[in-house]
């Protein structure tokens, strides 16, 4: 079954923290790439990143999201990931942090401990120039070849169509991303959480 849900900008996963989470998004770890030596000395071994911790609490799921529906949780997580406001957020990372509301603790912790090590990219820079916001239009795609759900694990493929809207009516063709989502829960009747995802074109 195909479903389409256009989620209002910042309508999810920002409860109690305002739309955009500028403080989180602005956390940038210049030391993410820690070098033991300069490259021109011929030694490239680098210690694993030692990221600064994200001090703010993991956000709560938005009200109205049925946490007992794997599909609803997957949709909410992907929506949060691709819903941004460039006038408030400093990069896609701010949205990823909002999406941690729907993740397992270990996945959320990994996201929080690993902010991006480079800039948000040319597309973001363009969007920011136009003070754009973007809301994700979500479609859950059935995939008969994919894994079969069990009582405590579920698999979803979610398509996000992300269209920017800037000042003066500015817009661009949408970006479309496919996200494979794995969800788990402790037992039947427990809420679902996203344990990992894979994003592709």
């Amino acid at each position, binding site marked *: *079954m*195909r479903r389409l849900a256009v989620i209002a900008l910042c309508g999810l996963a920002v409860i109690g923290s305002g739309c955009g989470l500028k403080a989180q*998004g*602005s956390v*940038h770890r*210049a*030391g*993410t*790439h820690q*070098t033991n030596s*300069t*490259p*021109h000395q011929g030694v*490239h*071994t*680098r*210690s*694993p*990143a030692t*990221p600064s911790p994200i001090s703010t609490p993991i956000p709560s799921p938005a009200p109205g999201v049925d946490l007992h529906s794997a599909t609803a949780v997957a949709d909410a997580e992907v929506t949060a*990931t691709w819903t941004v406001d460039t006038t408030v957020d*400093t*990069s*896609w*990372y701010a949205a*990823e942090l909002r*999406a941690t509301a729907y993740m397992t603790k270990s996945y959320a912790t*990994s996201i929080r401990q*690993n902010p*991006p*090590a*480079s*800039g*948000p*990219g*040319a*597309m*973001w*820079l363009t969007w*920011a120039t136009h003070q754009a916001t973007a809301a994700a239009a979500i479609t859950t*795609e*059935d*995939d*008969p*070849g*994919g*894994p079969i759900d069990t009582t405590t694990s579920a*698999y979803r493929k979610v*398509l996000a169509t992300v269209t920017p809207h800037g000042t003066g009516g500015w817009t661009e063709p949408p970006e*479309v*991303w*496919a996200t*494979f989502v*794995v969800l788990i829960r402790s037992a039947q009747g427990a809420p679902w959480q996203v344990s*990992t*995802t*894979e*994003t*592709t*074109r």
Partner: protein
Amino acid sequence: MSTSTLTAAATAVLALVFGIVGLVVVVAGSASSTASSPVLATAAIPIAGLVPVLDQAGSLCPGISAPLLAAQIDAESGWNSSAVSSAGAEGIAQFIPATFAAYAQDDAGTGSVSPFNSVDAVMAMGRYDCALLADVSGIGSQPVSLMLAGYNAGVGAVLRYNGVPPYPETEAYVAKVEALVSTYSVTLAQSAGATSFGQAVVTAVTAQLGVPYSWGGGTPSGASFGFASGAGTIGFDCSGLVLYAVAQASLGQIGLPHSSELQATMGTPVAMADIQPGDMIAFALGPDPTDFDHIGIYIGNNEMIDAPYTGVDVRVDTLNSYWQSVPLAIRSFG
């Protein structure tokens, strides 16, 4: 070695890689690179003065290339040498200051080093890419993907996950850069009377017969590790196989989404009576007749090649009464 010799050598390599017969090279401007690397399409570089710099940086170590660096620059800044992100990244390569300081030299010979000097920045990017490649060597079979992931997420995350970390921004960055490489590589085009595009699609997909199904697997460049049940398998799922075949046939110029539902809406619609080899054929197997949840490539003789499901390899399926009893959509790219 002369440029023309280099071009001829690169042509031979590309023709072998893509397995397409009857194609001729159309160079978008002059080409320059080493014979062992993808050839930089110089006309695609918006800052002409950077062509030799890209060539130099792209030859700093095996595994990187001038087109790869150009694709990274496109994704990072859109060739804006004065770009500054609100996250603190600077210049054409969008370096974080500490990273730039570690890899930059006065390559421009200005007496100073700046991320806003594109020569310094591009050369630093080359050195950094080489360092990342060395760091991720031995992890997997797709070192460039891992290197790009390290560029975006930090090498620590790549090492911890022993692969591309599951961060949407990082995965999107890797996919975007890899798709852009073809934009900056010498392109091939079909000559009059050469093999048709559809036949090129068939050639590409036929070469994958017997490759395992892998949920989430398949990129424009080939089979890949999938996800969840496909995590340990290099292969294709149905839409991954189709996007691969079309990308190969179009030499990277047509990038399809990893979605049968969306693929079924792209290209030109074709009636069943007019179906040709190389056309995409999608099926709605569930209750929604507009939800095309499976897709394959028609190869003629009432047959298609598809990646069916976990446990079954890419195979030839006859379009029997079952397949013809469900809603279907046929799409063509030429």
